[in-house]
């Protein structure tokens, strides 16, 4: 490393150090003996900056929390089947040669080397299953459409029991908004007191609302993935050696299509349990209820499908709370979460 480089690095460092600190010179209050007038002047300017910050975060809040106003639309969101059909046709076309090959080979085996009756029977069974699967594969768009329609209708029917469409305080959206809105309000107050006073709370509600948005979008994409892979799944499922993988894929397909039912149940659960809590113990703090309902919304699908490992919920809670102070990575937290969402796969459901 020659001298110039070192000098360059030093100079650049010297030039950037104030830039790094300029950020906290902005809101810094020193202990100098200042007159009240001066402090008033300073506080006016700082107030402008803080108010601006709060304004921006308010915009972000309305941006992210808009999901609570449209819960029904978000929950019953499904990819339009017409988009999927063409791609599925492509995959069917991709799979059919394999099927034909399999059928031809099996029938050739039947015709030419038919040694033991057991082998014949086996081959016949394979042939039958292949043809059956071939039919299923060519019907797969229909099946997917059936599944998606069924699940969205079911979740819609469940949500008809609730007043999710209204944005009143006792609707699920209102309750969930209560949880994050409380923190958001507190963030405003702390920010007015000190510029970076409320960053943790900001990150907390950011995390929760982002997880909600992201999980729903992720489910949307995964439904697309598994439904366009449905022919492949059927192929894998129909061959004996790859049956286990086919089973896993099928399980994933069903799981991700029916997660929305879990969310609908979560909505029902949130509203009815809040009403029940009002009766059982009036005056239960609303902020905690809202926070709990956020967790409920995220975890009820896995609970309902027996996929929930309760330790992981505890770990999640602790993670979220712990990740708040590290001002890095509310978003990395979300992606961790979403990844876990995707990979979650419990032995309990393997024998479906």
């Amino acid at each position, binding site marked *: 490393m020659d001298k*110039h*480089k070192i000098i*360059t690095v030093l*100079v650049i460092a*010297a*030039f950037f150090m104030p830039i790094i600190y*300029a*950020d906290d010179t*902005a*809101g810094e209050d020193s202990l100098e003996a*200042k*007159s009240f*007038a*001066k402090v008033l*002047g*300073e506080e*006016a*300017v*700082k107030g402008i*900056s803080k108010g*601006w*910050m709060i304004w*921006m975060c308010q*915009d*972000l809040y309305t941006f992210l929390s808009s999901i609570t106003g*449209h819960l029904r*639309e*978000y929950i019953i969101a499904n*990819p339009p089947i017409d*988009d999927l059909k*063409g*791609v599925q046709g492509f995959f069917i076309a*991709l799979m059919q040669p394999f099927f034909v090959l399999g059928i031809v080979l099996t029938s050739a085996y039947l015709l030419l080397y038919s040694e033991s009756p057991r082998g014949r029977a086996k081959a016949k069974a394979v042939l039958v299953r292949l043809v059956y699967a071939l039919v299923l594969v060519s019907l797969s768009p229909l099946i997917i459409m059936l599944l998606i329609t069924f699940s969205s209708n079911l979740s819609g029917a469940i949500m008809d029991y609730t007043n999710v469409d209204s944005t009143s305080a006792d609707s699920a959206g209102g309750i969930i908004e209560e949880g994050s809105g409380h923190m958001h309000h507190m963030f405003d107050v702390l920010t007015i007191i000190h*510029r*970076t006073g409320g*960053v943790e709370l*900001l990150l907390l509600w950011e995390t929760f609302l982002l997880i909600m*948005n*992201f999980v*729903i*979008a992720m489910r*949307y*994409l*995964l439904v*697309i*993935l598994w439904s*366009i*892979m449905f022919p492949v799944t059927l192929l894998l499922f129909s061959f004996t*050696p*790859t049956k*286990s*993988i086919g089973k*896993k894929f099928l399980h994933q397909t069903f799981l991700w299509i029916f997660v929305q039912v879990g969310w609908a149940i979560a909505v029902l659960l949130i509203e009815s349990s809040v009403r029940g809590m009002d009766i059982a113990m009036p005056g239960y703090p609303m902020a905690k209820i809202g926070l709990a309902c956020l967790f409920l919304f995220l975890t009820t699908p896995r609970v309902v499908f027996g996929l929930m490992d309760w330790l992981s919920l505890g770990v999640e809670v602790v993670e979220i709370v712990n990740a708040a102070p590290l001002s*890095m*990575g509310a*978003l*990395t937290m979300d*992606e961790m979460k*979403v990844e876990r969402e995707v*990979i979650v796969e419990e032995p309990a459901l393997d024998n479906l």
Partner: protein
Amino acid sequence: MKENRIIILITAVALVCLACAPFAIAEADPLDPIAQAAEGAAEASAKYFIVAIPIRMWFQYEMMYPWMLSYGESFINNYKEAILANPSLLDSSAKGYNPGITNAVSYSISLMLPFYILAIVLTGAYIMFISGSIEGRVKAKNLLKRLVVSMIFFSMSPLILETMLVTSQSISSAIINQADPANVRMVLEGGIWGSYVIFCKLGVTDLEISIAYWTSLYVMAWLPYMVIGMRHIMMCLFCMVFPIGIALYSFVYMRDIGRKILEQTIVWIYLQAFLSMAILVISLGASYYYLLPADQNPKLTNAIMPLGSLGESLGMPSTGYQGSPAYVSLGPTSILSYAVGSMGYALLIAVPFMMLRLLNKFLP
């Protein structure tokens, strides 16, 4: 860096300090409250509006905006090439041809060959001389048969690998061509530019509250490349041990290890298809944009000034204070496009791991 730039930087620092020195000396009249207030306001706003905000905006727009144009858009522009790239073992005219892998494969072949010969010779000797019981002979014969067959595959392994690579590439290209590039670009840009917009919006007021989005920019821009690069590395590794895997697979006692190696080889090679599947899914995910009616779909702009949106409507750059082309408003981002775009990137990262988790123990 050149000399003159260093000099420029040094002079810049010196000038900043010198220019600020009078501030340190100047004092308002201690008996005039108005002057005091004015001084306080002036100092604070000097710190805030002349030092902090310009620096942050300089950071966001002068440093991060070109970064976005180059790095942020990089994967969106090159996803096809990046995903379809494959090493080639035999075809020396191919782009990804690398003799290193070929040599490694042939080295591992030459490593295992003597064992094969030894095993075959021993089995033959057993059949010829130590002809024990009938079933022993049968067993030995079966073993011999399996050995010979596996030896054929073993010596053909570069060819098999090449075939697998070519088929995976063709399948992936077939899948990825189904995707509509416009949709893919729309969705992915919705994700990364959405984070950038939020980063700009929050980051001008305070960098600390926008660090998460700033980090997410790097994650989105680089992690897909990292996943693809990991696929390449693992693929080369397993190509090298592939012959050994075949050899172990043919021996009864080491069947498990051999199965693992073969499975991993196949999965890592055909991960390409799943990555392109993810791209296809992303292009189909564009329909998420129309989940809500456009008027109910909340938007967010990087308009930082209270008047920013007004300025936009008047057609003036909302964040501009220098008229530099980079300071124009980036336009609104909607929650749907942001969510689905971020999840598109997450999908690119998650799908390979999901498949690695799902695809195991599929070989007999």
